[in-house]
């Protein structure tokens, strides 16, 4: 199954770079949804294989990240009636270059980090997960809109989920579901906040939320 895992991770990396290159908000949301589905598939091809635990987990992740989150975000976007462009501080060309640099750093880190021997022998999981985490952080700090910050948070979350699968096997299902519940509520709360902000400000540009200083 290792080939499949590496294939999934490679697809996630391509999605990361596509996310940095795209300028349309709806497309961003769709890319993150696809990435979420891929993360959901990972437990099924992990060494534990198809057990009740992994199937329940995969189903929950795919349903939330693949269907519920994109719908929440699209609704928030429509309710806020925002312009459809991403509006980055850093242009898409430079973003892509930085993304490639982050990818390089991830491979270097993946080789350097003193991760426990339990890590699977698949080559791409740890660096891929680190890269996804870094790209998520980059999206959060480099994009102006509140909604793209949520997209960045989801990418970060995807990266952490993959990282977890790589280094710890068999986290109790109860904890996994608790984490998913938290992420779900987080996105839900953020979507409501985006609606409130758009009502109060006529925009959802997080960079213009800057009245509070000192």
């Amino acid at each position, binding site marked *: 199954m290792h080939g499949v895992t590496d294939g999934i991770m490679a697809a996630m990396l391509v999605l990361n770079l596509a996310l940095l290159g795209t300028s349309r908000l709806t497309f961003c949301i769709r890319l993150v949804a696809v990435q979420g589905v891929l993360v959901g598939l990972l437990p099924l091809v992990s060494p534990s294989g198809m057990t009740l635990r992994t199937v329940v987990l995969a189903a929950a992740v795919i349903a939330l990240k693949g269907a519920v989150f994109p719908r929440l975000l699209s609704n928030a976007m429509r309710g806020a009636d925002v312009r459809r462009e991403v509006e980055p501080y850093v242009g898409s060309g430079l973003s892509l270059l930085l993304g490639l640099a982050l990818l390089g750093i991830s491979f270097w880190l993946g080789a350097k980090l003193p991760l426990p021997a339990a890590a699977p022998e698949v080559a791409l999981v740890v660096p891929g997960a680190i890269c996804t985490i870094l790209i998520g952080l980059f999206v959060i700090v480099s994009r102006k809109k509140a909604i793209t910050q949520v997209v960045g948070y989801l990418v970060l979350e995807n990266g*952490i989920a993959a990282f*977890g699968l790589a*280094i710890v096997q068999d*986290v109790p299902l109860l904890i996994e579901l608790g984490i998913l519940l938290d992420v779900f509520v*987080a996105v839900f709360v953020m979507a409501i906040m985006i609606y409130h902000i758009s009502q*109060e400000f006529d925009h959802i540009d997080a960079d213009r939320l*800057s009245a509070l200083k000192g």
Partner: protein
Amino acid sequence: MSVPMPGDVLWLVIALPAAGSLVCLALPSARAVLAVTAAGVPAIAVASGAVVWQVFAHGPLLTAGRWLYLDALSAYHLAVMMLIFALSSVFARVYFGAEPMPLSRRRARRFGALWYGALAAMALVVLSNNLGIMWVGVEATTLLTAFLICLHVSPVSLEATWKYLIVCSVGVAFAFMGTLLMGSAAAACSPGGAQFLNWTYVHDIASRLDPRVVKLAFIFLLVGYGTKAGLAPLHSWLPDAHSQAPAPVSALFSGFLLNTALYCIMRFIPIVETATGNAGWSRGLLVFFGLFSILLAAAFILAQHDLKRLLAYHSVEHLGIIAVGLGLGPLGSFAALFHTLNHSVCKALGFFSAGRVGQIYGTHDMRRITGALKVHALWGVGLFGSILALIGLAPFAIFLSEFLIVKAAAETKAYVTLAIFLLGAGVVFIGALRHAIDMAWGTPAAVPAPRRASILEGAIVIAPLALLLVLGLWMPRPFQEMLSSAARILGGSAQ
């Protein structure tokens, strides 16, 4: 090590607030919601007091298939938390009753449900034996308290809420990576064990963990939970959220939300220290972050004009002081835990007073709040007294706990730490004292005559001040033993 007792009562400490949360959603009026919080939370606090007492009398409680665990360290934090929640719940009734615009039924229901919900989530953090569930609880407190900041919707309160949500969610995500790394280190030592995320288990096998992985994990945990605890330079969300939230919510944030996150860091200290050969590696990091917080807060306190932001930077300072204490050996840990209670009680009173004084003057700008002692004697005393206690004036208890930290620094020969600590505390003392004197004694500003204080308001001001004064002069023997046994856990003992 004594055998932990079955403690099925622990469930109730989480279940009762959760039930309260649902009840609040169904209440018919804003008055009813505020009454149910003001009466219900202190009742839950008293009931939890019984559980805490049982821990100190008979030893740790472990229950629910090892998911819930209450030892001296968590019991002490549970007690502080319940005290702050009870005080703030009673104050919430006073505060919202004095608002120019009464709470609508919808807002009040939302407040009650989230308030009880936050109580349940924080109880989950403190009671959880499983490090994963502990993380779930911390993230839940972020999400449940977010809407409490913007209870009164305004552009600035939304801005503060958004920053809080994003910064804390992302920060706490790092803590999750740290938890995973810690779990992987434990799992590597116990093939096939399903317990590798339980604190009791990880603590027992700590000496066999791979120190490199444990160090990596602790850096992630410190950054992650440190963001939520408001340790500089990760505190960017804190002054905004504290200043924009309604006063009872600010009191809760400063009084215990920050401590919840710091508690999580405390849980990991004995594990990391044992795994890295008791070389004081994690303690050094805590001292560094603590000193940085103290200095940064001191600079911002000097230049501050907003009363609630002033108190918020005091929180950064005091959480820094607790972190420094944790880094200074057994006496330092003892002092840090003592300081936790002192700061929480004092800061809760500070925000209560800031909230009521702000309502009376119609502003939080300290340049326009003058002669508070003449305008409203009771809340003027509350404000002046809490700031004096906060900056470490003798004989209030904060003076004593800070003195113990200084002593711990001198005993461990940490002279650089000692010097920076005294410098920061000195700057804060002078800066905040100047603000406090202007607010208390200046020519009274012309404001509409405030209504007279009720007996309840009197009790809310007098009780915390009295507690701080008594603890500053005399430490009861049982309380001292309580602190010692909690500090021993930080030092690596399972008791």
